C-alpha cells in the first residue's frame, strides 16, 4: 500500500530541523529584513540576511506557515547563505515546487516567499545606491 504522503523527504527533513530558522546570530555591516503574508491563507514568512562584502554571510527565516512553506524558506536560506547578494535576484518558483513536491494549489504560498526575496533584493539595491562604493 503506497500512501499518498503530501510531504516528501526533503520537506520532512527541513521541517524537522530547520537550521536556518530564527534571527541573525552575527553582527553584519549590512543586514536586511523582509516579510510577506497572505491574508487568505494566513501564512507569514520573514527573511533576514546578514551581508558582508557583497556576500550573504548569514540568512535566516521565520515563518507561521505550513510545512511546505517552512521547507521552502529553509531551503532558500541554506542555498543563498555563502553566495553573492546577486543570488537574491533569482528565485525559481517552479524549481522549488518541484524539489519539494508542492501541490499546485499552494503556488500562492511559494509566491509569498518570492515576494520576500524580491523585497530583500530591492532593499539591497536601494542601499547600494545610497552608500555607493560599498557594494
Amino acid at each position: 500500500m503506497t500512501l499518498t504522503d503530501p510531504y516528501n523527504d526533503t520537506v520532512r527533513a527541513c521541517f524537522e530541523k530547520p537550521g536556518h530558522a530564527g534571527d541573525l546570530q552575527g553582527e553584519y555591516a549590512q543586514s536586511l529584513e523582509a516579510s510577506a503574508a497572505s491574508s487568505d491563507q494566513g501564512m507569514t514568512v520573514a527573511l533576514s540576511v546578514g551581508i558582508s562584502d557583497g556576500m550573504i554571510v548569514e540568512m535566516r527565516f521565520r515563518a507561521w506557515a505550513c510545512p511546505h512553506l517552512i521547507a521552502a524558506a529553509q531551503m532558500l536560506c541554506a542555498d543563498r547563505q555563502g553566495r553573492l547578494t546577486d543570488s537574491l535576484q533569482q528565485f525559481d518558483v517552479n524549481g522549488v515546487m518541484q524539489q519539494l513536491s508542492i501541490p499546485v494549489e499552494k503556488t500562492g504560498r511559494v509566491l509569498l516567499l518570492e515576494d520576500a526575496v524580491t523585497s530583500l533584493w530591492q532593499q539591497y539595491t536601494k542601499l547600494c545606491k545610497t552608500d555607493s562604493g560599498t557594494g
Partner: protein
Amino acid sequence: MSNGPIYLDYAATTPPDPRVLHVLQDSLGQTGSFANPSSIHAAGRQSAAMVAIARTQVAELLNTRQERLIWTSGATEANNLAIQGVANAREHRGKHLISMATEHKSVVDTFAALEKRGYKVTWLKPDGSGRLLLDSLSQAIRPETQLVSVMHVNNETGVIQDIHKIGMLCRERDVLFHTDAAQSVGRLAIDLAELPVDLLSLTAHKFYGPQGIGALFVADRPAVQLSPIMFGGGQERRLRPGTLPVHLIVGAGAAARIAADEMHENLSHMTAMRDRLWNGISDLDDLIRNGLPVHCYPGILNVSADGVEGESLMLGMEPVCVASGSACNATSGESSYVLRALGRDDLLAQSAVRFSFGRPTTAAEVDTAIDRYRWSVEHLRGIAPAKTGLLLK
C-alpha cells in the same frame, strides 16, 4: 503498533469493536444472510429477522421502539432526511427554521440549501462556552417556525447541549425538534422515552459499528410529518428506499448493544484519558481550551495554541493522528467555523487540535501525544515571527 500511527481521532470515526468485527464476519459468512430482507423467500425472511433484531438493539440503546427507526447510510443522510423532510412536508405551514452556527456541516449545508429555496433560517450563536442560551432560542421562535435543529454533542469541541430543555421549549411552542446525535449515541445515555425529541440522527461508525449505516429516529407523534428525500421501493415506511444492507445493520445492532452495556465504563476511561492529556500539556503558555469542560463530553479535548500554524502542527504531531481546526482540506485554508462561533479568531481557530479518545486508547498513547504536542508547539513557536500574524491583524 509501536511504530504505526497512534489514532486519537475517534470523534471522526471509530474502528469496529473486535466483537462487532466478529458479528460482521459471521453476518457476511455462512451463518449470516445476505438475502434481500424484502424478499418473501426463506433466505429473505432470515435477513428480515436479522434486521429486526438489530433494529431492536439500536432502539434499546435509545430506549425507544424499533418501529421508530429508519435506517440510513449515516448521520449525514439522517440529518438531510430530518431537515429536508420536515421542511418539505410542512412547507405549507410556514418556512421558518432555526439552527445553530456550530452545527455539523451536514446540518448547516442542508439549512443553507433550504435558504436558497426561500426558507428563512435563524442561525443562533452559542455563548463563549459553546452552549445555546435558551432565551435566544425562545426569542427566535415565531408562529411560522417549523423546526429547531440543535446537535447533542458538538463534533469539534465536545460541548453538550441541554437537549432536554431545548426540546421542552420546542414542545411548549409547538415546534418540531431535531437533534444530530452522531457524537452522543452510544457514548452518552439517551432516553427517548423521556426526552422531548422528535427526530434524532445517529451513525454507527461513531460507536464502533461499521461505516455506511446510520438511522433516523422519528417520534410517534402526529405532528412529525416527513417527506422522503429519495424515492423507490417501499422500504423503511416509504421514507428511505433501497436494498437494506444486512451486514451493516447487523453490525450496527451489535455495536449498539455493546455501547449500552459498557457506557459507564467507557465514559470513565474517556475522562481519565482526557484529563491525563490535559494535565500533560496545560502548563504550555497561551493554550486555550475550546468548550467549557464542565459541559463537554469527555471523549473530546480541543485546544488552541497561539502562534502555531495548523497544518504544521498536524505534521509535528505525527505519528499521532488528531484533527485540526483548519479545514479537512489542507489547502482550503479555511479555519473552523465552530471555533470562530465560540469567539476564536482565525489564527487561533486554525491552531486548534482536537484530541479524541476511544475504547482502545492507552495511557502510553496519550503520553506520546503529550510529547508530540509539546514538541510541536515549542518547535513551531520557535520558528514563528515574534508577533504571530502581526501582518494580518
